[in-house]
Each structure stands twice: as structure tokens, then as C-alpha cells.
């Protein structure tokens, strides 16, 4: 009897996964995970379709989509043309929300400071090494800047946050573009690395005179100081959900593989970016039944419409009207065995 029940339990453990045929599986980015788990839960409550999302990191999500072991992937950085070529059939990027990277610091009394693109590049290239450098003083005339050494803290783990930040630096500084470039992991010219937002924030709290970058959500939740950053129009912008949504209210390309950094929007925060769900354009590539493909399309539609209202309470920036329109068009373009799913 014992043996039988043991075998049954084992069978259940190994096969339980497949019992639920109406289940969608996805894997990828960790940054939007709190948003996705809320949206997917609400989707389940309304439709009865369960979504199993594993936040294993964008890299893993992309690999799993390529191996066709998941129904959809998720990434904080859009795939390059070279990366897209490795998929056996075209992949579509559906933006779901936007996030931002803020510069946070540890100075006596934590005054509100302003930073220009030149100064940010100078600090992270290791060229500006003291807080009372004239270049920082000039843009912060009212702040009493101490003669402290600047300690740069960056992410040590590969992350979409690093990608967005380095994408910004690549756009605003030729020297950065040449020496460092953009990527999820970089060869940093200066400073120390820490794992995850909590790691970076922890070191910044401990090291007087330090500066580093964390996700907007993390800075808001932990009441960390955040620098105002000068955008393309010369305005100093405070990082907030509103200024991040504004950043994406610009003309966008049809495939939505777009970087929002150094935005043209006059009120937009310059270091922000979309996060995407990745699906095959023809869903029959990795999904067997038409019903399941329809469930996935329903989920995507839900995420960019009803799902958007869960973004702000969780400190994610909802899609701007123009971004939502483009995303709708992309969802409408999805097919199953060559036939469009949404009319």
C-alpha cells in the first residue's frame, strides 16, 4: 500500500504540470515580475486561465522561448537583429509598461542635487572624482557640496537596469560609447559592483560620498534621494511615474524595439525604458492548439488594457497612449498557422 501511494505521489509530482491544459507558461525578466504577477492573477480571476511566470532573468526567458519550452518570454532589453536571426520564426515585442533608472547618492544631509549628462558621464567614467568639482558645483549653486571622494557603485549582476543606464550613457557621451558601450554586464572603468537593487542601495547607504543607479520603484519604496536629470530640452526632470510615461509619448517605431533613453519629450525623464513580452509572430511555432494561442492573445490584450491600471500602484509607468496604439497593432498582427487571431 505504502509503495503504491509513493508511486502515485511521484507520478503526480512529475506529471502534475501537464494536468492543467489551460495554463500558459512564460519566463524572463525579473524587473516587471511584481507587475506581471498582479496582472496575471487578475487575468486568472476573470478568465480562469492560469499563467505560470518564472522570473529567471531576461537571458533565460529568451533562451527558453527559442527552445520553445515556454509560451512567451519577457525581456527588459529588446533583441538585436543578430539575436533575432537565431529564432526559427519571427518574434514580436509587445511593450507592457515602462521603468526608469534613477541616480541615488549618499551625501551629508542628502540634499536634492541636479545632474547634467556631461557630469553623469564624467562621474561614471572616473573623470570627476570629487563632489566639490567645479562642474558639479556649477549646476548646483545652492547646495553645499563637500570635498569628498566620489565612490561609484554599479550592478555586478547582468541586468536590464544596467542596459538602460549604459544605453543612455552611450547616447550622451562619445567617450562612453567608445570606451564602455551598452550592455547588461559591462567592463566598468571605475567603482565597485553589488548584486541587485538591494545590493547597490545597501552599499550606497554604507559608503559616504557614493553614487549609483537603481530602479525607480526601488528608490521610491525605500525613500532614497534621486537626482534631477537634465533632458534633451535642457529641463531638469524629477524621476516619477508621470515623467517616465511622458518619456514614451514620442513617435515610436512599428516594431516597438525602441530605446526611450535621452527622449525627445520635453517633460520626459531621460533614463527610462520599456519592458516587453516576447511571442512568436506565428504562435503555432511553439503553441500546439488554437485555443491556447487565443488564450495567449487574450492575455496580451488584457495586459496592455485592463492590466495597465495595476502599474501605477506598483510604481511602474503605464504605457503612453501612443505606445498602447502600437502595441495593439502588434497584437493584431499575431497569427496561428498563418491565420490572424484577432479580427
Amino acid at each position: 500500500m505504502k509503495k503504491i501511494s509513493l508511486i502515485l505521489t511521484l507520478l503526480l509530482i512529475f506529471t502534475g504540470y501537464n494536468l492543467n491544459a489551460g495554463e500558459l507558461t512564460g519566463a524572463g525578466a525579473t524587473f516587471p515580475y511584481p507587475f506581471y504577477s498582479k496582472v496575471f492573477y487578475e487575468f486568472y480571476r476573470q478568465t480562469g486561465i492560469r499563467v505560470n511566470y518564472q522570473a529567471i532573468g531576461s537571458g533565460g526567458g529568451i533562451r527558453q522561448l527559442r527552445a520553445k519550452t515556454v509560451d512567451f518570454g519577457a525581456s527588459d532589453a529588446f533583441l538585436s537583429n543578430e539575436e533575432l536571426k537565431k529564432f526559427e520564426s519571427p518574434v514580436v515585442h509587445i511593450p507592457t509598461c515602462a521603468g526608469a533608472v534613477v541616480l541615488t547618492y549618499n551625501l551629508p544631509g542628502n540634499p536634492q542635487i541636479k545632474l547634467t549628462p556631461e557630469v553623469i558621464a564624467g562621474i561614471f567614467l572616473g573623470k570627476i572624482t570629487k563632489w566639490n568639482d567645479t562642474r558639479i558645483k556649477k549646476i548646483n549653486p545652492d547646495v553645499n557640496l563637500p570635498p569628498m571622494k566620489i565612490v561609484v557603485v554599479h550592478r555586478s549582476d547582468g541586468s536590464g537596469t544596467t542596459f538602460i543606464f549604459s544605453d543612455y550613457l552611450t547616447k550622451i557621451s562619445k567617450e562612453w560609447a567608445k570606451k564602455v558601450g551598452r550592455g547588461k554586464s559591462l567592463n566598468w572603468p571605475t567603482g565597485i559592483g553589488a548584486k541587485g537593487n538591494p545590493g547597490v542601495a545597501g552599499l550606497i547607504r554604507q559608503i559616504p560620498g557614493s553614487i549609483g543607479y537603481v530602479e525607480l520603484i526601488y528608490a521610491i519604496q525605500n525613500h532614497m534621494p534621486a537626482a534631477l536629470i537634465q533632458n534633451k530640452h535642457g529641463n531638469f526632470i524629477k524621476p516619477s511615474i508621470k515623467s517616465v510615461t511622458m518619456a514614451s509619448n514620442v513617435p515610436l517605431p512599428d516594431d516597438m524595439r525602441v530605446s526611450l533613453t535621452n527622449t525627445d519629450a520635453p517633460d520626459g525623464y531621460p533614463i527610462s525604458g520599456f519592458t516587453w513580452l516576447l511571442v512568436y509572430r506565428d504562435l503555432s511555432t511553439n503553441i500546439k492548439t488554437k485555443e491556447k494561442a487565443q488564450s495567449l492573445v487574450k492575455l496580451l490584450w488584457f495586459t496592455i488594457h485592463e492590466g495597465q491600471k495595476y502599474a501605477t500602484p506598483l510604481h511602474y509607468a503605464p504605457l503612453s497612449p501612443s505606445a498602447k496604439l502600437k502595441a495593439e497593432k502588434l497584437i493584431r498582427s499575431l497569427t496561428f498557422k498563418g491565420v490572424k487571431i484577432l479580427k
Partner: protein
Amino acid sequence: MKPERSFSDTLFKILLWGGAIFFLAIVMISFFFLFKGSLLSLKKFGIHFITGTIWDPATDKFGMLPFLIGTLVTSVLSLLISIPFSLSLGIFSGVFYTNGKISEIINTLSDLIAGIPSVIFGFWGLLFIVPLIQKMEIKFGLIPYGTGILTASILLSIMIIPYSSSMIREVVRLVPVELIEAGYSTGATRYEVIKKIVIPYARSGIIAGIMLAFGRAFGETMAVTMVIGNSNQIPTSIFSPGNTMASVIANEFTEATKDIHLSALIQIGLWLFIFTFIFNLIGQLIIEKTSAWK
């Protein structure tokens, strides 16, 4: 009775053989997969992978020398810091207080340390060792990173003490009582007995314990990542931030989207595998050579 016993004997034998071969197979398979995964970067970089000093995922340049140096320096340094402590701890509870409350408490505590998950050590290091090193750095006029090679080595040394000390404890206990008593009977002091009889007799076991601790320090990942500063540059002093092979893999693996980046990370894993194997081999050689009385 007899046939039954021989049946269970055969079964037992099969189980043992099966277990041993299965284990060997797993080691071979993991080596094979590491090798296969690193082929791409092996072909592209060749020997430059080991001698290269630039690790730059953005431009696909991968050389692991900074991490190799970081790994060797932190493990050797942590070993040097830990040896006096683990030796005295082992001798204390293996020779001086072999039983009784004190040795029981000390043994339990040291075993407990061995069982603490390394992420907890990492947190403790961040909250306790980092501020201490920072104060030191401020005193010396250095940049107060707090994290770096020295911080990681100190943390590692504490983590590995239980591994070597418990082994040392067991081997010094094996020193025959007759030898020790013979030592005392010649008028030797306790110190002399330990120095001239206990340590030489248990030398090979002591070295084995130290090698075990070295292996642990070499491959430790989580705690080191949290306090080493994770810089891809070759460390210039013990206060500068660095990185180890294991922590680079842990840091970059999940988000490595490019094939060559992934392959380079797997190749680091391959080298970790090979180095650990070599160190174990060296350890065994030393043990064989130093076995005092056979």
C-alpha cells in the same frame, strides 16, 4: 541461510558498484557538458582566455585573468588567516579538552558555522566586516569602498575554519596515547608534546583538512560576491575591489543573452572544475609524501 546471505551480498555489491559508477558517470558527464558549452569560446579565444586581462561583455572580449588572480588571492589569503585559528581550535578540542562541556560547546558551535548558508555570511560580512574595513580605509586615506579582496578573504577565512578544524580535531585524536604518554614520560611539556609528537604524527591529516578548506574557499560564490566589490580589473592591493571566477558566473549567467558570453562563462566553470581537480591531486600527493609514520 547460506544462499540468502550470498544473494544479499551480491545485491550489496551491485549497489556499491552501481553507486560508484553512477557517481563517476555524473562527474564525467558534467565535465563533458562544460567542455561542450565552452567550445565556442575555446575556439575563439584559445589561450588568451586565461591570459587576457579584459572582460568586456559589451564588446565580446573575454579574458579571465583578473578573476583567476582574484580567486587565488582570496583563497590563499583566507587560508593564511584561518590556519592559526583552525589549528589551535583542532588541537584544543582534540588534545586538551577531548571531552566535557567546553569542548562539546566549541564543537557544536564550529559545526554550526559550517552549516550556515553562505548568503547569511554575506549579509553578516556586509553589515559587520565592511564598516570595519571602511574605518581602516578612511584612516589610511584610501577610498572607503569597504568591500574588496581583504574583506572577502576575512569573511572566507571564518567560513572555512570549521572545515579544517573539525578534520584536524579528528586526526589529532588518532595520535596513539602511548606516544603522547611516552613524550610526557621523557619530561616534555605539553607544548613540546604537541609540537614534536602530535603535529608531526597527524601532519598528513592536518594538510588534508587545510586542502579541504582551500577547496571550499576556491569555489565559494554567494558570500564572496556580496563583499568583494565585483570589479573586472586586476586588483592592485588587498583593499581594491576584485572578482572571483565563481562570482562572475553567478553574476552574469542569468542575463547572458549572447552565445559567446554564455560560452565564456561556461569556460570559467570548466577551469574551476579543472583547477579543483588539480588542487585535489596536489593535496593527495602532499598527504602521501608527508605521512610520517606508516
